[in-house]
């Protein structure tokens, strides 16, 4: 049926433009008519027409791609609906939700994994961003080059190609990261202790979260009883269920440049006089950072926290590229969105998938709402 997909796409794009222009004109005229009936002045009628005409592409798109789909997915989330079987949705009430919350171990694992990425990954990411911003905020030459270098990972971001480069670097045996760790340990033995201590802490945390997801904490006990890692231990990045999420966190930290820019803007907004006054009072640089800069940075930290939370809850690409089809690792890594994709598009369970997407949405809204409620306790807006 499809002769030339490119030709078709261009034709459809032209048709879409016509559709948008047509519907915008329609909405514009309708709005003007209503304004006229309500007895608005000639000028006001014209503005009403122009306003709705220009805003309509978004309004129409909102109806077609957001509001109506959300309505349907809310309905389907209460039904048993499979797109392949061609049968109509069958009402099942709360069954999908109950199944997801109470029984589905895969979904529970995906929620706990996402929680891990948020609870462990996000603070590390924000910390790295803040550190780089503080370093860049010292007046110096070449700042631009450093800024570019720190921001470039955001652009490359989660592109499949770049993720595969990470996959190569994270190979347990021959990957460059573990080779560097081995080399540094040989040259400088204290580094080996640091490495092993980090491995220990990481594996304990990871085992704890894995225990949360399947309800059995024997792995945590095993790691604890094995005690301090042996001398030749190296991180098992993309190989072990205890490390699979840490690899994703590395990627998050690598992409901290966007947060860094926000922090940098915050630091540059802090009035110099405050620092000077604190210095006169005898505060050292450490104290000045925590007592002067940090409180004034809290609105920016809050912003990064909200955006970072929403982003962390939506991670998909690294999981797909690094772990798809890697059966022993899947339960330890799948994120909520990956699970949604799997249920909807590998098993084509539309009803079930809709319920998952509503749970994700509710979770994001709830967490964002709690953050906004908590902000009075620690965010300082006084000076703005």
């Amino acid at each position: 049926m499809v002769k030339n997909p490119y030709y078709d796409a261009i034709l459809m794009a032209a048709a879409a433009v016509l559709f948008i222009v047509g519907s915008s004109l329609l909405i514009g005229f309708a709005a003007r008519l209503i304004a006229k009936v309500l007895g608005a002045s000639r000028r006001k009628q014209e503005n009403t027409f122009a306003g709705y005409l220009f805003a309509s592409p978004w309004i129409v798109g909102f109806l077609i791609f957001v509001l109506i789909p959300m309505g349907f997915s809310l309905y389907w989330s209460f039904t048993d609906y499979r797109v392949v079987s061609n049968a109509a949705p069958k009402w099942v009430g709360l069954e999908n939700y109950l199944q997801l919350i109470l029984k589905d171990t895969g979904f529970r694992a995906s929620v706990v994994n996402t929680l891990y990425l948020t609870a462990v990954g996000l603070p590390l990411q924000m910390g790295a961003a803040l550190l780089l911003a503080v370093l860049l905020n010292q007046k110096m030459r070449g700042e631009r080059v450093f800024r570019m270098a720190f921001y470039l990972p955001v652009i490359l971001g989660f592109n499949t190609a770049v993720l595969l480069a990470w996959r190569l670097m994270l190979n347990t045996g021959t990957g460059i990261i573990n080779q560097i760790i081995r080399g540094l340990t040989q040259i400088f033995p204290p580094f080996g202790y640091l490495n092993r201590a980090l491995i220990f802490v990481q594996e304990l945390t990871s085992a704890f979260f894995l225990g949360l997801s399947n309800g059995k904490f024997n792995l945590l006990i095993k790691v604890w009883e094995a005690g301090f890692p042996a001398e030749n231990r190296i991180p098992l990045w993309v190989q072990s269920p205890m490390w699979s999420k840490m690899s994703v966190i590395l990627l998050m930290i690598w992409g901290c440049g966007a947060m860094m820019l926000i922090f940098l803007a915050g630091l540059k907004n802090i009035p110099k006089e405050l620092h000077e006054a604190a210095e006169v009072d005898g505060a050292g640089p450490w104290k000045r950072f925590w007592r002067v800069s940090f409180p004034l940075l809290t609105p920016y930290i809050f912003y990064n926290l909200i955006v970072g939370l929403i982003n962390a809850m939506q991670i998909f690409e690294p999981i797909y590229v690094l772990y798809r089809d890697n059966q022993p690792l899947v339960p330890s890594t799948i994120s909520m969105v990956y699970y949604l994709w799997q249920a909807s598009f590998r098993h084509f369970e539309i009803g079930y998938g809709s319920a998952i997407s509503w749970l994700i949405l509710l979770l994001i809204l709830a967490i964002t709402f709690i953050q906004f409620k908590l902000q009075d306790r620690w965010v300082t807006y006084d000076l703005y």
Partner: protein
Amino acid sequence: MRTIWPILKRLGLYFLLTGATVVMSFPLFWMISSSLKTLEETNSAGIIWLPKVPTLAAYISILQNPDFLRSYFNSVFYTTLALMGTLFSIAVVAYAFSRIQWPGRNFVFFLMLATMMIPPQALIVPQYVFFNKLKWIGTFNPIILPGFFAGGAAMVFLLRQAMAQIPKELDESAFVDGANHIQIFWEVVLPLVKAPLATVATFLFVGLWNSLLAPLMYLQTVKLYTLPVYVATLYNINLTVQQWPTIMAAAVLTTVPLMVVFFFAQRFILDGVVVSGLKG
């Protein structure tokens, strides 16, 4: 001692920053270096920072792969078309939210900001069913056309903030001269927001070029695959030996457009158009 201390501090700062730069750029370096290696070198047990004899064999092999070339063309094609439609519609809508006073504007604007809270993934299931009904699975339509409806509330917001800063007197005087909104939009407002437009275009380009989930869901056939979808298939978990040089050559070729765009657009992004838009 008093004179040497600031110099030491400066040196330490540069040392830290250079170290961070090396770490942050390392994946890129490794990608390029590995693409010039042989298969034995990428899988070697020792560290090979740079291949002794760089070889272009991996590039020759990937450039002879018709699937890769087609996916490259597909990416360029879909990104161009989607970028044009999205950028234009975003500018139009941003104009409505900043330069025209119309009843209901605040409500619609608030609604748009509220949609930013909805993760796009929460909508993919019903959208998939919708596109399936239209018989659009296996075509480019689902990944190109939604953007035409001013897709991307954050980008509309960014442009609106920029447009709102233009003095009102400019269009007032144009009105007196008999111009209408379409003329003012095209001839007065757009030329004044070139830098924010460039920023938005860059973000849109990066988002489209890197996009994986939507193309993966909707394209379905290898003939239509875009780069991220195709490149992901190069790494096959079931193989014991991965063709790393070839994969990395594909990766380098995939990231080149991103780097070129970033190089030209970096002054817009890094000078904080985004950040100043946030505060308003």
